Structure formats: structure tokens, C-alpha cells
């Protein structure tokens, strides 16, 4: 009896405890669903929008000494909707007929770009251990205990109250107002609504602004729960919200509310009961410590895999999306043979020169950066395979790379395995993980694959990394996850130049393999699947098998790259290199520069490691001016500009999925060939430029 009442009390406490965070999850989920319903954008940048409002609120309160009310008004009710309007107006409105995957990629780019842009513009930098206080005086210190089992802080009551008010307001809006009715109509069919004389654009802009208010509000409300105000935490938050929204199949607002509250309670329950069970059964102890933070990701993954209703949610797509011109074939296939030879000669000369300079003149720092760029190019080839060839967005490439790195660490640490052998084993393990992961999600559509891989990445991040046999547990926190440099016979690759040679060899072999695969049966099969899954099946291609193969290959490449990166840094450096948020930037870079070609991956690798050193720190100007002392005063530019530039670079993905490199290569080929033709036949009219749609400038 006593036991039962204790249990009941625990249950009640967990229930109440879960409500306030649940209310915030619900707010985000509702905002997310609102934007998705009215514009079909799977807005991963929602977390970034929440971050911006929270950061401005923090800045205004702490740095500028504003009162609560003005800070709240400006950050939530002014900045948030303004940001939403800008995104809708400048970007997503123009992507209406793009595929949902293209919109997702743009949203991922914005996730990377927006927080950095805000930081640079406002001059905000997160202070460790400091977050804003709530939006009510004494919010964290005054408690109320309405049911006698759990004491709510004022902040928590405020969060719940606001969630209720927002929900009621939204319900009233949909039910009683003209704009609500129009929003419901736009959800059904934007084109049809326009034919009835309603400006779908205006309705869509309104719902973006409204949904952004939800993001901002949730950001300000949740911020006190974090240790430090940092963008990655807010990105986690949006994944939690997606889990909540998935409960309502991304369509139902009341269910998204229920999903958010349910998730909050579920997490609280796990936090309440798991420790007690773990005390009784020591076997559960390691699980207890790690599972609770991973609950939302497990729930999301389980929902995606086990609940067919989510999978079959009709993708919001404009019926006119099919008429957009498909992406052109690779530029290298179209160019004339003379140009091919010229390109190759130039490439050889260029790389020999760079190589000569690097091996004779470069100091330790430059060698480090160049080696890093070569290794990252190798890792990025895994994105070339999964995104460029198979057309799938995977957000767990960092995890595959981390698996490679951790395997080398574990094998060499425990068994003294030779690092190179361990790297190969790591690649095989990563490949197996890729194949295993792809099995349950093989039926999911494009956007859902991205979300499922993201859930996997977060699960690995929250649980696996902390296990002793993966990330090394407690000891590695003290001494790092140390990885040795390999030796091959007489060569000690502890020498940086020798290691660069190894990195180059690995990159060249991987590139050749990727090119062979692209031109071979697998590449053709994947291209067919990307073109039409239905038609591919009708000629006997198994989509599931091809996808599993693509994931396995991609995992292998990422694994070998991750192992190389860990060997180079002689440490796995998980948080810095491979965490889900860090790896988002990989995808952004590769997609921005070109996900279809080896050149794209190589340039993305160079951009990742060298862009800051060469451009942002002004090295290139120093070189032009022949003295490092004469670098103009505007340098060094904040390294955050990397995220902004390449993040915004994804916007062109919708129109040019082949990436900037391919687009410009094609244009250069065409111009060169036109020029050559004119030179060969003086007087003859130049051939007309084929009408390829030019890149439309979306961002001024």
C-alpha cells in the first residue's frame, strides 16, 4: 500500500514536472506544423529562429539593461515575425514549386547561417554558463505547489499559461477570422485558392510570421533551461519538436500540442523511474545515465519506422513542381575532347605547383590545414555518394565518420592494433552501421530519411558516445580519445608531410572508386532510382537493395575519412569534428559547391579547412601585397562568415542541384567552346547559347 502510494506520487510528480517543458515543445511543434502546412517547408531552421529571439532577449536584458517587457516585445513580437517574413519573402516563396528535399536542404543551410549572421550583426557571443532569466520577475525562485507533489516555478507556470493562450488564440483564429479560413484553404491547395481571388502569397507570409512568433516565444521560454545560450542546443530542440509534430503527422495542430506535452511527460517519467530501476538492477545503470536525453530521438525514430501513417503522410507538393526543368547532366560529359585535355593538363600543372609549394615551403600550420582539407574531401565523397548519386539527404555522415575514428581509438588503445588496419576495420564497421540503419528506413520518402538519419545521429551523440566501448567513458574525458599515427614499414607517418602523402593517396583512391561507381552499374541504377522509383522497379531494380548499398558505401567512405581525421589530429575530438550540428555544415558545404562530382567534394574540403585561413584571415591579400604586415585592417573577418556564406549558398540548390562548381564549369565550357568556334571560323556567327535558366538571385 505504501509502495503503491509512493508510486502514485512519483507518477504524479513526473506528470507535473513534464508539463512545462512539454508546453514549450508543443509551442515549437505547433509553429513548425503551421509553417509546414501552409508552405510545405520542412523548416529545420526553426531552431535557429528560436535561437535568434532568445539571444536577442538575452542581449537586451543583460548587455543593454532593457526591461523585461521591451526586450520581450522586440525579440519575440518584432524580430521573430520579421525574420519569418524575410525568409518567406526572399527565399521560400521562390521555392514553392521545388521538391520537398530541395526545401529541406535550404532550411538546413539557413540553420547554419542564421545564428552566425545574428551573432555577427548584433555582436553577440555566448557567455559560458549564462542564459537569460525568464520573462517574469523572480521566475526561477518563486514556487507554487498546487497539488502538493511538485513545486512549479513561476517560469514554468508562465510557459504553460502561454502555451494554453497561444493554442486558444490559434484555434479562435482558424475558426472565426477571415485570414484563418484563407489559411485553411491555402493548406488544401495554394493554386486553387489563388484562382478564387485570394493572394496565397500574403496568406503564406502571414502564417510564416505567426509561426515564427511561436519559435521566438518558445526560444525565450526554454532558454533558462540551458547551461549556455548556444545554437546547437536550439537545433536539438527543433528535433524534439519534430518528434512532437510527427505525432500529429505534421498536419494536426491539436495533436502536435498533445505530442509536445506527451514528450515532456515521457521524458520526466524516464528521468523519474529509470534511476530507481537502475538502483535495483545494476545492469541498467549505464542505460539509465544515457537513455533519458535520447528519449525524443528514440521516439522520433520509432515513430518513423513503426508507424506507417507517418511514412505515408502525403508530401506537401505543388502539382506544378513536375514541370520544372530537371537538372542537366554533368558538365564533364558535355564538353568537347579538346577541352577535356586542356582541363586535365591545367589540373595537373596546378596541383603539381601547389604540391611543390606545400611540400617545400609550408609550415606546420599550413600543412595541418592542407592535410585536413584533403581528409575532409575524402569524407565529403561519402556525401557525393549518398546525396549526389543516390539523391538522399543523410544527416548522420558525421556519425559514420565518428565510428571510424572511435574504432581506431578503441582498437589501438585496447589491442595495440596497427592504426591503418584499425582504420579499415573502422570503415567496415561504419559501413555495416550504414547498411543496418538504412534497412528500417528504406521505405521512407526523401525528407523522412533526412529526419531519421538526424534522429540516429542525435541518438549516437546522446548515448553511444558516452559508452566506454565507444567514446571511452570517463578516462577519455580526462586524457582525450588518443589515436596514434600509423607506420608503414620504414615510414613513420608521424611526420606531417608523410601523413599528407597518405591522405592524398587515400583521397585519390576514394575519388577513383567514386567515379567508377558513378559511371558503372551502381551509379546508373541509383540515377534511375533518382529519376523514377516506379519505373526503376518496373525494369527489375530493387530500390531497397540499392539504397542499402548506397548507405553502406557512403558509411565506408565516411568511416575511412573519420579514421584519417582522428589519426591526423591524434585524437577523435568528437564534439569538434563529428557532432550532429558540426556535420550539418558538411552537408551544407558539399551541396553548396557540388554534390555530384569529385571536384565538388574536393572544393568543399578546401573550403572547410582553408577558407578561413586564406580569405577570412586575409592571407590571400597578404600574399598579393607581398607582406603579411600589410593585410588591410578589416582582417581578420569573423570565422562565422564561413557559415553565413555557405549556408546561404544552399539557396541555389533548388534551382541548381548540381552545385555552384558544376554550374560555373558548365557555363565556362560553353563560353570557351563558343569562343573557340568563333576563332576557328572567323566571320561565322557564334552558336546561340542554349537556354539554361540562369541562377536566380534570391538573396540580395
Amino acid at each position, binding site marked *: 500500500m505504501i509502495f503503491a502510494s509512493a508510486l502514485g506520487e512519483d507518477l504524479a510528480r513526473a506528470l507535473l514536472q513534464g508539463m512545462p517543458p512539454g508546453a514549450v515543445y508543443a509551442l515549437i511543434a505547433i509553429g513548425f506544423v503551421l509553417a509546414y502546412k501552409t508552405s510545405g517547408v520542412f523548416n529545420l531552421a526553426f531552431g535557429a529562429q528560436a535561437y535568434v529571439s532568445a539571444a536577442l532577449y538575452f542581449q537586451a536584458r543583460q548587455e543593454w539593461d532593457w526591461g523585461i517587457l521591451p526586450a520581450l516585445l522586440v525579440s519575440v513580437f518584432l524580430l521573430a515575425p520579421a525574420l519569418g517574413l524575410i525568409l518567406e519573402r526572399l527565399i521560400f516563396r521562390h521555392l514553392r514549386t521545388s521538391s520537398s528535399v530541395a526545401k529541406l536542404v535550404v532550411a538546413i543551410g539557413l540553420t547554419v547561417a542564421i545564428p552566425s549572421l545574428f551573432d555577427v550583426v548584433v555582436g553577440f557571443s555566448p557567455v559560458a554558463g549564462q542564459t537569460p532569466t525568464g520573462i517574469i520577475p523572480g521566475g526561477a525562485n518563486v514556487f507554487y505547489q498546487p497539488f502538493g507533489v511538485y513545486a512549479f516555478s513561476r517560469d514554468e507556470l508562465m510557459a504553460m499559461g502561454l502555451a494554453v493562450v497561444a493554442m486558444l488564440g490559434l484555434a479562435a483564429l482558424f475558426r472565426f477570422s477571415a485570414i484563418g479560413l484563407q489559411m485553411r484553404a491555402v493548406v488544401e491547395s495554394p493554386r486553387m485558392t489563388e484562382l478564387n481571388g485570394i493572394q496565397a502569397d500574403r496568406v503564406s507570409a502571414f502564417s510564416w510570421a505567426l509561426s515564427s512568433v511561436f519559435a521566438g516565444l518558445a526560444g525565450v521560454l526554454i532558454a533558462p533551461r540551458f547551461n549556455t545560450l548556444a545554437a546547437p542546443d536550439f537545433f536539438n530542440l527543433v528535433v524534439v519538436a519534430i518528434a512532437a509534430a510527427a505525432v500529429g503527422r505534421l498536419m494536426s495542430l491539436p495533436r502536435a500540442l498533445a505530442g509536445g506535452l506527451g514528450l515532456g511527460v515521457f521524458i520526466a517519467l524516464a528521468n523519474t523511474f529509470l534511476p530507481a530501476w537502475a538502483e535495483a538492477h545494476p545492469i541498467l545503470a549505464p542505460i539509465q545515465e544515457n537513455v533519458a536525453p535520447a528519449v525524443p530521438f528514440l521516439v522520433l525514430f520509432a515513430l518513423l519506422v513503426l508507424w506507417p501513417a507517418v511514412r505515408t503522410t502525403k508530401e506537401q507538393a505543388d502539382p506544378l513542381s513536375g514541370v520544372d526543368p530537371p*537538372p542537366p547532366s554533368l558538365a564533364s560529359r558535355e564538353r568537347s575532347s579538346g577541352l577535356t585535355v586542356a582541363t586535365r593538363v591545367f589540373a595537373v600543372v596546378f596541383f603539381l605547383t601547389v604540391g611543390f609549394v606545400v611540400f617545400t615551403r609550408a609550415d606546420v600550420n599550413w600543412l595541418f590545414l592542407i592535410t585536413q582539407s584533403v581528409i575532409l574531401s575524402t569524407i565529403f565523397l561519402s556525401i557525393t555518394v549518398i546525396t549526389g548519386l543516390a539523391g538522399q539527404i543523410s544527416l548522420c555522415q558525421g556519425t559514420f565518420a565518428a565510428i571510424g575514428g572511435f574504432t581506431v581509438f578503441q582498437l589501438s588503445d585496447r589491442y595495440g592494433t596497427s592504426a591503418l588496419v584499425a582504420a579499415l576495420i573502422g570503415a567496415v564497421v561504419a559501413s555495416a552501421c550504414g547498411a543496418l540503419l538504412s534497412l528500417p528506413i528504406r521505405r521512407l520518402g526523401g525528407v523522412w530519411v533526412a529526419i531519421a538519419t538526424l534522429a540516429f545521429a542525435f541518438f549516437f551523440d546522446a548515448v553511444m558516445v558516452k559508452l566506454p566501448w565507444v567514446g571511452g567513458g570517463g578516462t577519455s574525458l580526462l586524457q582525450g580519445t588518443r589515436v596514434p599515427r600509423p607506420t608503414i614499414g620504414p615510414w613513420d607517418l608521424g611526420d606531417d608531410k608523410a601523413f599528407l602523402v597518405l591522405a592524398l593517396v587515400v583521397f585519390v583512391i576514394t575519388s577513383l572508386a567514386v567515379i*567508377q561507381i558513378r559511371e558503372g552499374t551502381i551509379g546508373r*541504377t541509383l540515377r534511375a532510382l533518382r529519376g523514377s522509383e*516506379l*519505373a*526503376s*522497379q518496373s525494369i*527489375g531494380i530493387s530500390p531497397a537493395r540499392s539504397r542499402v548499398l548506397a548507405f553502406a558505401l557512403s558509411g565506408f567512405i565516411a568511416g575511412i575519412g573519420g579514421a584519417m581525421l582522428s589519426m591526423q589530429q591524434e585524437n577523435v575530438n568528437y564534439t569538434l569534428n563529428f557532432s550532429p550540428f558540426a556535420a550539418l555544415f558538411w552537408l551544407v558545404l558539399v551541396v553548396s559547391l557540388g554534390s555530384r562530382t569529385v571536384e565538388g567534394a574536393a572544393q568543399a574540403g578546401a573550403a572547410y579547412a582553408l577558407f578561413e585561413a586564406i580569405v577570412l584571415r586575409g592571407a590571400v591579400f597578404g600574399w598579393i601585397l607581398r607582406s603579411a604586415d600589410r593585410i588591410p585592417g578589416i582582417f581578420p573577418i569573423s570565422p562565422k562568415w564561413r557559415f553565413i556564406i555557405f549556408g546561404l549558398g544552399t539557396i541555389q540548390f533548388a534551382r541548381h542541384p548540381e552545385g555552384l562548381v558544376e554550374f560555373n564549369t558548365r557555363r565556362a565550357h560553353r563560353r570557351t567552346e563558343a569562343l573557340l568556334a568563333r576563332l576557328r571560323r572567323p566571320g561565322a556567327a557564334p552558336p546561340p547559347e542554349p537556354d539554361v535558366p540562369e541562377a536566380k538571385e534570391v538573396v540580395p
Partner: protein
Amino acid sequence: MTPILETRGISKSYAGIGALRDVALQVGEGERVGLIGPNGAGKTTLFNCILGLLVPNAGSVWLAGDNITSLPVHQRARRGIGRSFQRIELFTESTVREHLLIAERVRRGNGSLWKDLLGRGRPTADELRSCDVVLARLGLAELADEPIEQLSLGQGRLVEVGRALMTQPRVLLLDEPSSGLDRQETADLAATLRELQEEQGFAILLVEHDVEFVAAFTQRCYVLDFGSLIAEGLTAEVLERSIVRESYLGTPEGPDT
């Protein structure tokens, strides 16, 4: 003689509403069979059950005497069910020849990761030759290296047929091949298909709205209405029957479907 394609007692319902009721249909070897019926009669549902895109609630699908009801789509394709699409489904970023090449490669099943990695995954002379034969047969030889985006709808349909032929089907399912084509194009397509079919001996199951096309092209036909077969037999006779005319063609005064 065993029919090449047979459905036995296929029933399918969506949320309790019957779309197909106990449909039995047979296509003999080398036969041209039509499947007609008004909109919503269940033609597409039946088609999808045969292809494996839908699982029937009851009944079975047989191919050359084998029960294929539980096989996935791509395995049915490998066993000899080829198809074309009502809304053409082509592979973007590929040329006409590449469409046929990939089908040929899959049929031969001689691609593997190792072959790709060793650079032996590129099309062989043999494969190219067999593609060119079919391309020439369809009158697409001139367009072989054109990107697919440059083709007209009629040419696109021919590419679909060519791609399906590369799998060496035993039965070819054609889903409204005349939709979007004008009269002349339809007639040309029908002529080409008939020649190929008589030459190579595969069977054809045709779903079609254009009654003239069905009348001219098929030997036998089935008529579906409200999910049940209401008539079957020689095409010319079936089209004369009053029950068919009423349900499908409408009376001379009544609205046309």
C-alpha cells in the same frame, strides 16, 4: 494451355469500400488483351495488383503458372512483367540509350560492386548492340544520344516501350498509352507495338480509354464496372453488347464518359 498472366478472384477494398470484387482475368501467350471500363471502375487498382504495387485483400496473381502474389514489384519485373506508364516515367539526366542500357544491364544481372570498382561497369559492346537493335526497331536510333528532356510525349512513350522491351517481358502491361497523343501518334504507336508483339511473341494487356484503339488493337477484352467484370470475350463482340455500351459508352443521347 497455361495462360501467361492470370488473376484469380482478386478483391481489393479501400477502407471498406470495394474497389475490386472477385476479378478473374487471363492473358494467353502472345495474345493482345484489352481491359476497359469507365472511370473509377477499378482498372488501375487491378493493374497495380498485377504489378505488385497493391496487395489484394483476396485472390492471387499467376505468371506462367507461378503464384507471384507475394513477390515485390521488381521481382515480378524480372520474371517477365513489363509495363508503360500513363504519366510517362523516365529517368531524368539520362539519354535515350541510357534508359535501355540500364534495363539491359539489370536483366543480365552482371553488375556488381567489384566490377564497378575495377572499371568494368561501363556498358559492353554487346549491351550497346542489343540496345541499338531495339532503338532502331522503334525508330529512335536518331535520338539515341538525346537527353530525355528533349523528347516529345510520343517519343517518350516509345522510350518507355523500348525500356520495357529490354527486360524481355513475357507480358507487357500498357497503361493508357494513347493519353496525351494525337490520332496519328496513337496509330503509329499501335502499329509499332503490334509489329513488335507479333515478332517477339510477348503478350499485351492494355488498359485504355480510347475505344477505337482497343477495337483495332486487341483480340479479346474484359470490361470492368464498379469493380466487377461485366463482360469478356472477343473485342468486336464485347463492344457490341448492350450492357457494355450502357455502362461504358453511354447511350447515344446520354453523357459521354
